[in-house]
């Protein structure tokens, strides 16, 4: 029994799930109808659905970020890439004779995704070929990317009116918001490609020890390209959902700070920023924790902008808990306890 308990507690998913449960509890106390899901016009509504739907863009970005972090990297440019994707799609829709034509929408989305592909390749090139530290390499695109997005929108907030495009952000299929399907799709793709093939193991190998994995014959260069491209694609999907949600491309503010939220989700999910072992399920739980935190702040009645203070506290706590210093101190404490228990057993 206690062995089972120990295994559950030592699982990497334990603490994030506890956090999520505590947040749910607070919500239920503050707002008893929290778990209720109602069906209106055949579509599902409720706080839980809202959390999933509003959290979907960040969750998608965080899934891409997880793989980048697993290779010891980081991608700060996801917010800028999301802004560019949204801007590109909106400007194409605006330029088209009929923005509501599904073909036009498909072209707009495809172009946005293709541009994200190019941007991801650029990041991958800087990291894998030029050898710049990931923080700095992606910082360049983070700085210049928002400027480029402003250039695409010519400094305006582009508002479009296109029913097929709006589906991405606010549509429902079989009663479930489309954004949730997209998040689930990205998650499944990531899981299938990294856990059903050797890809995930190779990514972890590069993250744990680049030199050893090189000597073992792992080609890091292609893997790095792959993860940065995947992260950029995820960012583009996230950016498209956010843009479709408001039906406006606001190059300055869309997906602002999403890179921080995504990194936070990854960290809460138990993936170490030092690279190596990663958990996609953990990231999903982490993203849910963050989105639930935001919702909780709303339902409890705290002014919503103070959320950032809570996020700061959560990051600090998680980092301190993950810190080797804390772990050593805890281990020493446990050893002392065990020793004392042993002595007592002997003396009795």
């Amino acid at each position: 029994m206690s062995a089972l308990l120990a295994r559950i507690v030592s699982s990497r998913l334990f603490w994030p799930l506890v956090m999520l449960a505590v947040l749910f509890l607070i919500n239920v106390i503050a707002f008893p109808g929290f778990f209720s899901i109602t069906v209106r016009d055949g579509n599902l509504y409720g706080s839980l659905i809202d959390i999933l739907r509003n959290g979907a863009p960040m969750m998608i970005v965080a899934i891409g970020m997880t793989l980048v972090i697993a290779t010891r990297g980081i991608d700060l440019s996801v917010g800028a890439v999301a802004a560019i994707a949204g801007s590109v799609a909106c400007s194409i829709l605006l330029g088209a004779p009929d923005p509501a034509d599904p073909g036009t929408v498909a072209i707009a989305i495809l172009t946005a995704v293709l541009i994200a592909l190019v941007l991801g390749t650029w990041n991958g090139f800087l990291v894998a070929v030029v050898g710049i530290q990931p923080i700095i390499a992606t910082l360049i695109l983070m700085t210049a990317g928002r400027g480029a997005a402003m250039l695409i929108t010519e400094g305006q907030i582009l508002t479009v009116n296109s029913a097929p495009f709006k589906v991405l952000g606010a549509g429902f299929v079989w009663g479930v918001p489309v954004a949730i399907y997209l998040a689930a799709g990205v998650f499944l793709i990531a899981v299938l490609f990294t856990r059903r093939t050797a890809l995930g193991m190779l990514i972890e190998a590069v993250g744990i020890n680049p030199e050893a994995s090189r000597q073992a014959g792992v080609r890091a260069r292609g893997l790095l390209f792959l993860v940065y491209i995947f992260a950029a694609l995820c960012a583009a999907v996230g950016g498209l959902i956010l843009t479709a949600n408001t039906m406006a491309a606001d190059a300055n503010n869309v997906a602002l700070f999403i890179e921080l939220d995504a990194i936070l989700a990854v960290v809460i999910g138990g993936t170490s920023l030092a690279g190596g072992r990663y958990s996609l399920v953990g990231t999903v739980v982490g993203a849910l924790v963050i989105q639930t935190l935001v919702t909780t702040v709303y339902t409890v009645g705290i002014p919503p902008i103070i959320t950032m203070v809570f996020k700061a506290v959560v990051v600090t706590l998680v980092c301190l808990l993950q810190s080797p210093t804390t772990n050593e101190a805890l281990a020493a404490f446990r050893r002392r306890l065990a020793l004392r228990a042993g002595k007592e057993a002997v003396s009795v």
Partner: protein
Amino acid sequence: MSTLIKAPAPTQTQRMLQRTRSAFTSPKYGPVLVTAILFVVVFIAGGIRYPGFFAGQVILNLFVDNAYLIVLAVGMTFVILTGGIDLSVGAVVALSTMMVASLLQSGVPAVIVIPVIIVATTVLGLLVGLMVHHFKVQPFIATLAAMFLARGLCYVISQSSISISDESFIALAVSRIPLGGGMSITWSVVIALVIVAVAVWTLHRTRFGRTVYAIGGGEHSAQLMGLPVARTKVLVYAVSGLCSGLAGILFSFYTLSGYPLTAIGTELDAIAAVVIGGTLLAGGYGFVLGSVLGVLVLGIIQTIITFEGTLSSWWTKIFIGALLLAFIGLQRVLTRRKT
């Protein structure tokens, strides 16, 4: 029978060329020299293109408009020299302006407000430093947490803009020091230059400064040499916090208000200035004066965009990104050659 052919002694010019070459290819001086040349070229190009650009006041305005950024870049230089990074500076600047505005509004005299803020931001920096060093949290994530905290606290103070109406504070902020010839500077420039002077002295003339360079060169070796690595690593973040607080005060001199959303992205400007100014991101090489030069380059690009008139302000971001890339590329090339 072999004759020894004596190599001809290098002439004066050859030696000069040799020295120039090695200065440009050294990771220590190369980037700074390139930045200096870039600044001069951009300045001359601007002067040829726009009438009224070659004025002393244009140069002085670079200092007046960017005094806060100079102070920020000084603090960032300390952190980057040790191989760390501080992403919280922009948010701390905003927090500092908010604290200035709200404390002055509630009637606390400026003489008390300014030291209180500097102490508060220094303590925040110190806490970040402790997290980085003693809990081995990566600098990037620790300062990210500080950034969230500072930004959040801004909103806790107020969600809207607070204007400053304290007379002595305004007097200090708007009074100008005439330099003759119709040119003048503000007190914030004087403060920024004093900070730069103190930083240069600290880095080059004190044990703390030498330890900063030593940590950047190799933390482990610095430790083996018996240098106080732990203390120094914690202190650089405190220095950065101090500089951010002061920069916030200078920024509120400039805007005469506090607003929770100010200075978003300023951390990137500060990092860009430091990198363009020739400080190696891996740490170990770099000068405070280089960072000042980096700020001036960013400032002059901004000025040119203003003079051009047709270029929109978002071009600044793209230019900064491109410059950052170019200089990081330069760093790679220079350091690769050395190793």
